[in-house]
């Protein structure tokens, strides 16, 4: 483990969700958040679908995984039932190395969603996983400020337990390799 990273980005604890996680059809739950009338806005939860529910379940157990096609060995993410190369439906989870390179980032200043309004400015990364080509994840920058970011900066996954039944994957600058 690296030492305490410098210049920790301001980060509020994620409020606990009011309901247990229920996987819903893609995006449908997100669209209703603006209609909430409760006092504290709820953070958007992953709208897991039938392809991705198992992936989110692994994340809840602090496992970051990609799919490996048992027909042609292609690695893929996000989760899909068919291999786009050989069209096999036979696959298995493969643990990700949990490391990647910064492909892009944005520092959000505009409070687009009330649940994130108190957190601006915050930095979201697009990360190219080291496991193979074409595998990208998103997550907050953790343990550093955006001034450290550069194309290809090595990062490693950290799991953020964001409330009952919800774990998210964030990214921090990777420890120097020995």
């Amino acid at each position, binding site marked *: 483990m690296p030492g305490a990273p410098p210049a920790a980005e301001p980060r509020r604890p994620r409020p606990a969700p009011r309901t247990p996680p229920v996987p819903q059809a*893609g*995006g449908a739950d*997100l669209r209703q958040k*603006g209609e909430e009338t409760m006092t504290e806005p709820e953070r958007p*939860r*992953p709208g897991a679908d039938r392809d991705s529910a198992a992936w989110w379940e692994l994340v809840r157990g602090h496992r970051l995984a990609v799919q490996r096609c048992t027909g042609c060995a*292609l690695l893929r993410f996000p989760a899909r039932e068919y291999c786009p190369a050989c069209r096999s439906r036979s696959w298995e989870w493969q643990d990700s190395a949990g490391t990647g390179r910064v492909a892009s980032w944005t520092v959000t200043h505009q409070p*687009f969603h009330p649940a994130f309004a108190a957190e601006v400015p915050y930095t*979201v990364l697009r990360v190219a996983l080291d496991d193979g080509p074409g595998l990208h994840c*998103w997550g907050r920058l953790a343990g550093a400020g955006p001034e450290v970011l550069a194309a290809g900066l090595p990062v490693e996954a950290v799991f953020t337990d964001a409330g009952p039944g919800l774990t998210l994957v964030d990214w921090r600058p990777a420890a120097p390799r020995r």
Partner: protein
Amino acid sequence: MGAPLRDAAAVAGVGYTPFGKDSGVSTTTLACEAILAALDDAGLGPEDVDGIATHRVGDSSPPWVVAPALGIEDQGWYLDQFGGGSVSHAVLGQAAMAIAAGVAETVVCYRAINARSEFRMGGQGRPPAGAFDLQYQAPYGLLAPAQHYALLARAHMLAYGTAHEHLGAVAVGQREKAAGNPRALKRAPITMEDYLASRWIAEPFRLLDCCLETDGACALVLTSAERARDLRRPPVNITAAAWGGGHSSYSGAGAGGIGADTTTSAAARLAPRLYAMAGLGPADVDVAELYDCFTWTVLVQLEDYGFCAKGEGGPYAASGALRIGGELPVNTHGGFLSEGYVHGINHAAEAVQQLRGDAGPRQVPGAEVALSTAQPGYVLAGTSALLLTAAR
């Protein structure tokens, strides 16, 4: 010879409502007003309509409400396309196909939105409807189009050295052109200093990188090229239409890495088909109306439609080439950044006016070929475009 679609249909009329921040009326009313204006422009009336088409993302009035509201008892051929800016030109292309196929003769295409007063895109944390794969992004506070495009723009900057001033050149240049457009919401000139001083929205985007959330509607009347010759206005042919894409940046790379490189848009795959149908190339284009939800989409389309080398969109925009009188006048109406955001159709309407020669102070002299494009395919996985020519 060639594709049956080529030059089969023409735009006979364009119509608008005023653009603003609070229309005070329903999207049904906006649609009716724009359609009536477009029909009047063409010298036609609702009784001539036998087709109606729109697109929407749960934010607007559908054809089966708008047609009866105009007293059109039988709407005939209809299209209620799901989608945002990426399908804006797909709607027009499909209407042209319906005409080419003989299932309709006169089709009204419209887009009506209260994008400021009723349905803000991402402005209230409301992700685009149907954004299936936002599950991997929304929990991190990545919800609004500005944020998604910011990631794309940043990647382009990292890969090609695209600079903030290149983005700014688009914003400043389009405002300059909007001065000649009485319809434009923003006509006061801005400088590069103004651009660089505008507040951050989602880095690398500032306020002046973002299009104007607009209440308004725009409509086009399409009919057969043959019939259009007998109508009030000089016809503008739909010489080619194309569709493309298949991958959304919302879901990261498609399985197997499709779309992993976000610095190239779906337009790069569509453009060869579009040009081939028309028998034209980038050098033949006199004026281009390029989808500009954000400044950066103009840069990537300059590259992907073949107007400059890959990665050179920024320097090309900053060279002055996009001005009226430049090598390739782009977004002559000011675009979404300055005229207003009607989700794509107002680009096609501007292209039509340029080719009719009635664009007033912003007219590109002698314009005969125009490219008009949809959102370049990062959201909801598709793009669409038209090549239009003056039918003289």
